[in-house]
């Protein structure tokens, strides 16, 4: 007896959006319209997805038009985050296109009266013996793709023409020729401008507001006040800003969050009420004998997204329907939160994506979208564009959470690790919209009938975790316990910033590994290889060692350090060797990186992502720290929140280990943790000083020297 064949297991995005027509359409003019729920945030995803579609369909990539994500037609793929886009959207698209290709081959065989196996597809033209031809576009009228995916069979890697090739990005020409692509550059008829008034102190309530002076400004259309939410709409940006300045003068606030001591974050984090979880626990069957224990505490500060463009959104109401243009990472998730705030059915809200500046996680994009929606209500049907100020961007967007991480290792008489303990204190690393029964949008907490301020949580371990991301070591220590303590208070607003907790955890683990190796007098690279079983992990370490000729001869004033991680323990493998120059200040001269992302769809795109991640991580490591005093964030500008400049960035040399048969994974977050650890380890190599507190500034070095002497 044979049962019905079990349905194939579809990739997650395809299972959630099975209609083939939601992914691909053939336009009459010979184009292929490809939709994805993932969005371009400067990472080149749109090009990589176009490569995958063109490959599976056998069309020239020039025919592929990537449709911007919109809740009106796009597949719902949640959020563009976690380096999952190529993994989720890429796999879905590959399978959908493979199936569509097969459907068209069957139809072509029927129409042309030839055997399906005798047909070939070249640039969308389907031809067979005796010069019979048809095409996707000729057949498209007769074939409905409004059917559920059954699971196509993609081409073997060797037959892919574009995947694995460094195709030029589709969006770059527009950006060098000043063609509109960014939301900030969208011109709509009748566009007017909104600005929002916010208190310096997080969570403060508005107690008094005199609107008269602001109303008198030429060009002011309307002023909106709903509880502590105040905004103004003007004919021009200048008018709206002039009115905003007057509103600011005429406003009084009270209450709000008490911010912690910025110089004592570890003690603040450890003193808060927490929710504690055991992330992982492993006990040796034959425990080794402990001779001594070494301990260290590592911290990282709050880190800002500090997007180069202030967040921006446009909204327009027509009766009880609203259309929103946004650079949010998740159009459906934003829509869900807008529906909660507006108490409208989601169908009344259309959310469309337009590119913003580089996005490294949950920044102000969603918040400003609600700002625009609220201000558009008073604009008489005109589209309202709201753009945050630089200070708004630096102070009101959520931050990456500060972390305190304590590590302990029990060593036996030979200095081998017999037990390992890792404990994290941190706010949650995610408070994204669209995930809870309450909205996560800033203005929602400011209304007269406010929604509660959401305290950030952590994604589950199965999704890579949050504060605990990358806290379980990949090293083969015989026993360990990993604990995560998530704060239940949140005076400083935190949410997802690139890598979530992986940056802090990898910095801590990879620093501590070097501390142990140094105790043993063992080469830190050899120590790692001795404790790693995963061949791909060993391969990136060996590759980077070869490329940087580990370990270069000692040289005064120069240090070298290594860092390694597999992002989320399930994603890209990345090993880094940093070369630094250190005296009073640390200068990172060169970062050598080896990375394994499985199948690299666009190798230059991967290199670009790794270079960018490495440079951003260097900036985090040497410069970045959100500053505040008891009642306000004080890092409100680039002067108070410096990032690395052109004359300061290291050379970055990247080797991509291509594995065409392995599923592709993302590259955008692979380098951050390893780079930071490699720099800290290089500082120790150069100066003999172990810096356990980020950022590694001149003051930090002096403090660390004092502590070690």
């Amino acid at each position: 007896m044979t049962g019905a064949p079990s349905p194939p297991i579809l990739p997650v995005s395809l299972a959630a959006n099975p209609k083939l027509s939601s992914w691909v359409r053939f336009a009459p003019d010979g184009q292929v319209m490809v939709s994805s729920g993932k969005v371009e945030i400067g990472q080149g995803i749109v090009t990589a997805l176009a490569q995958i579609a063109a490959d599976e369909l056998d069309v020239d990539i020039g025919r592929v038009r990537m449709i911007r994500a919109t809740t009106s037609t796009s597949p719902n793929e949640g959020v563009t985050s976690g380096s999952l886009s190529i993994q989720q959207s890429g796999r879905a698209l590959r399978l959908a296109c493979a199936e569509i290709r097969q459907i068209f081959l069957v139809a072509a065989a029927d129409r042309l009266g030839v055997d399906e196996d005798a047909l070939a597809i070249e640039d969308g033209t389907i031809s067979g013996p005796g010069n019979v031809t048809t095409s996707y576009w000729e057949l498209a009228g007769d074939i409905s793709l409004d059917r559920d995916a059954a699971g196509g069979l993609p081409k073997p890697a060797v037959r892919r023409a574009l995947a694995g090739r460094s195709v030029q990005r589709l969006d770059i020409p527009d950006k060098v020729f000043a063609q509109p692509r960014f939301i900030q550059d969208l011109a709509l008829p009748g566009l007017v401008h909104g600005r929002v008034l916010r208190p310096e102190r997080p969570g403060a309530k508005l107690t008094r507001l005199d609107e008269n002076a602001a109303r008198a400004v030429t060009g002011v259309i309307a002023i909106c006040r709903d509880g502590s939410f105040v905004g103004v709409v003007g004919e021009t940006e200048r008018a709206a800003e002039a009115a905003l300045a007057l509103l600011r003068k005429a406003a009084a606030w009270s209450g709000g969050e008490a911010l912690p001591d910025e110089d004592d974050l570890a003690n603040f984090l450890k003193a808060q009420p927490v929710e504690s979880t055991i992330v992982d626990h492993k006990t040796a069957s034959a425990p080794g004998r402990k001779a001594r224990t070494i301990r260290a505490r590592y911290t990282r500060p709050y880190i800002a997204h500090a997007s180069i463009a202030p967040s921006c959104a446009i909204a327009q109401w027509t009766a009880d329907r609203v259309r929103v243009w946004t650079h949010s990472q998740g159009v459906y998730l934003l829509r869900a939160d807008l529906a909660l705030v507006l108490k409208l059915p989601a169908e009344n809200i259309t959310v469309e994506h337009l590119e913003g500046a580089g996005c490294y996680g949950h920044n102000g994009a969603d918040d400003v979208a609600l700002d625009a929606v609220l201000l558009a209500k008073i604009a008489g049907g005109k589209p309202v564009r709201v753009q945050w100020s630089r200070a708004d961007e630096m102070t009101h967007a959520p931050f990456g959470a500060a972390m305190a991480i304590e590590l302990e290792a029990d060593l036996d008489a030979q200095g081998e690790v017999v037990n390992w303990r890792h404990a994290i204190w941190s706010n949650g690393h995610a408070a994204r919209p669209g995930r809870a029964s309450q909205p996560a949008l800033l203005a929602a907490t400011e209304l007269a009938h406010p929604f509660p301020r959401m305290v950030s949580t952590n994604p589950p371990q199965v999704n890579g975790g949050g504060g605990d991301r990358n806290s379980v070591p990949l090293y083969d220590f015989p026993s360990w316990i990993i604990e995560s303590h998530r704060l239940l208070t949140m005076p400083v607003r935190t949410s997802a910033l690139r890598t979530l907790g992986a940056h802090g955890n990898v910095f801590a683990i990879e620093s501590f590994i070097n501390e142990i190796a140094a105790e043993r007098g063992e080469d830190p690279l050899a120590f790692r290889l001795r404790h790693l079983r995963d061949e791909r992990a060993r391969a990136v370490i060996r590759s980077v060692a070869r490329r940087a000729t580990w370990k270069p001869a000692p040289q005064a004033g120069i240090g070298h350090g290594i860092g390694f991680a597999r992002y989320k323990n399930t994603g890209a493998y990345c090993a880094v060797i940093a070369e630094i120059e250190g005296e009073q200040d640390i200068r990172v001269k060169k970062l050598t990186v080896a990375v394994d992302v499985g199948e690299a769809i666009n190798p230059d795109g991967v290199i670009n992502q790794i270079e960018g991640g490495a440079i951003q991580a260097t900036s985090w490591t040497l410069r970045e720290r959100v500053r505040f005093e008891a009642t306000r964030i004080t890092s409100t500008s680039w002067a108070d929140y410096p990032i690395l400049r052109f004359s300061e960035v290291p050379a970055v040399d990247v080797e991509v280990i291509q594995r065409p048969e392995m599923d592709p994974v993302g590259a955008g977050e692979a380098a951050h943790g390893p780079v930071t650890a490699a720099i800290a380890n290089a500082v120790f190599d150069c100066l003999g000083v172990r810096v356990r507190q980020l950022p590694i500034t001149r003051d930090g070095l002096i403090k660390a020297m004092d502590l070690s002497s």
Partner: protein
Amino acid sequence: MPSIRFRLNGTAREIDADPTSTLLDILRGQFGLIGPHFGCGSGECGACRVIVADHAVTSCDTPVWSVADKDVTTLEGLGSPEHPHPLQRAFIAEQAMQCGYCVSGVLMSAAALLMQKPEPTEAEVRAALDRNLCRCGAHNRMVRAVLAAANEMTVP
């Protein structure tokens, strides 16, 4: 409001404007140009750089009165897909960006540098771009692109 005359991307213009308006306001608001980008409003990030005469300036804190009778060039005036400036070609060839929001300002700083110093060293390129911020970490690609463009422009 007083009238102010200047040349914008090679064309003579005369506008009536509050002279304290910023050049960025006028370029984006009145002329609808999207090359110069708003980033900070205080001349710190360089996303809004345009060339006035032969210097790259931050248009967000340059009052419009100060460009009277001068030449103003934005990214729109640097080149076009049909007639690209070597810098624009080089930025495409080197894939010299991630998000690209800062690129317009970087291109204008680089173009001003090449006007003054056609064969810059790498250190000179970095110094010239030091007041342009890039958050994505595409710095080294941009430097390579500027050097490639300089090379192309000076080869006879």
